[in-house]
């Protein structure tokens, strides 16, 4: 039974949660989302029913009861639509940030929490950004905070193995400490594989 926006509001609360949760990416709430879509369809059905019963040229003062009811159904459709779009929009803005924070390849546990369309969106957004950066020949995702020295000292957290740094093959073993250019270190720090070491 159509509940006049109750489920929609729940979905928006979920969207707020998604934005407020900073230490993980909440899964797409497919179940709730589909319930709201279904409810919207119900409202639409009711709207059509009311419309079919409106008597044309009704001169009763103010409102035909069918018109009053129809208006409420129509509002409900619009309301649910707004809730659905707001939910999608909130997640979308967060997905964009993932590209800037983590780069083009997302870890599996985050990818798993995206819906199929969201994955497509991420891919498209990521490709657009990459090709733009390739065109202007500048990595826009580095230096998210104003840079200090061009070189930083880092400590390895993840297991990286052999990596090409500054055109030299370097072996980044866990817990070892290295000196490298900030531009090279930044994406790896953001991904949690290295940390800035201040000795």
């Amino acid at each position, binding site marked *: 039974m159509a509940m006049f926006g109750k489920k929609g509001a729940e979905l928006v609360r979920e969207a707020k949660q998604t934005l407020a949760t900073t230490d993980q990416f909440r899964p797409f709430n497919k179940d709730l989302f589909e319930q709201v879509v279904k409810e919207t369809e119900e409202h639409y059905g009711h709207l059509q029913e009311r419309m079919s019963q409106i008597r044309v040229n009704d001169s009763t003062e103010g409102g035909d009861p069918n018109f009053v009811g129809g208006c409420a159904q129509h509002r409900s459709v619009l309301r649910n639509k707004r809730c659905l779009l707001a939910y999608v929009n909130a997640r979308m803005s967060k997905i964009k940030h993932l590209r800037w924070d983590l780069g083009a390849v997302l870890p599996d546990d985050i990818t798993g929490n995206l819906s199929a369309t969201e994955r497509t969106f991420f891919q498209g957004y990521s490709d657009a950004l990459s090709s733009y950066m390739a065109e202007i020949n500048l990595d826009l995702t580095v230096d998210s905070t104003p840079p200090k020295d061009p070189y930083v000292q880092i400590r390895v957290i993840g297991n990286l193995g052999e990596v090409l740094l500054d055109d030299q093959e370097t072996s980044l073993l866990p817990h070892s400490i290295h000196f490298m250019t900030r531009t090279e270190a930044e994406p790896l720090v953001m991904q949690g594989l290295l940390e800035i070491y*201040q000795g």
Partner: protein
Amino acid sequence: MANYYDLDDILMEEEYVTVHFKFEAKGLGVLDPGSEHDDIEAGAVVDIPLWLAHDLCLRKFVSIKLPSFYNERIRKEIQADASCVDLGRYCPYFYELGLRLAPISPDPTLGSFLLYCLQGRYKDMLCKAHTVALTTAPKFLNLLTREETQLFEAARDSVKSYNKWRFQGARLERAAVLGRKRRLNALLSPFELT
């Protein structure tokens, strides 16, 4: 007008207001728990969410009754000591809801009352926001509406980030979305470091 995608605006519109139906409405019986049939009769008094009430009111199908937290008793409380009133408990969207209701409400003083409220409470927030101890959640935070809380937190965050800058300086950190405890193993191998 608020942003279409503004989550808080959407939730604010979910607040319930009491309306008086001037006409019969077909198929809205669900909204009235007291109603036995599918329709709402003319003259019925029903609680419905603002987003619906607002539209029906503009079409003059219903008239709106102001929620009780805008009544004379609360106004007296605010006059007595604005900053001590627990507006957050009455309605987390006290101001926004009021703003939306003011143009369609029968009471022309609602707008000035909201402004008076804001002015009375703002000073107190100003003093506390930048100085209150950062670690403890102050008791008076519970008295604030959602909008006031946002204002308060804006101030607190800027003090926090100033202190962070003051004592640690800027540094690179890993992305927050990865969570704290996660340990990454070699699952992200194809790095291109050119």
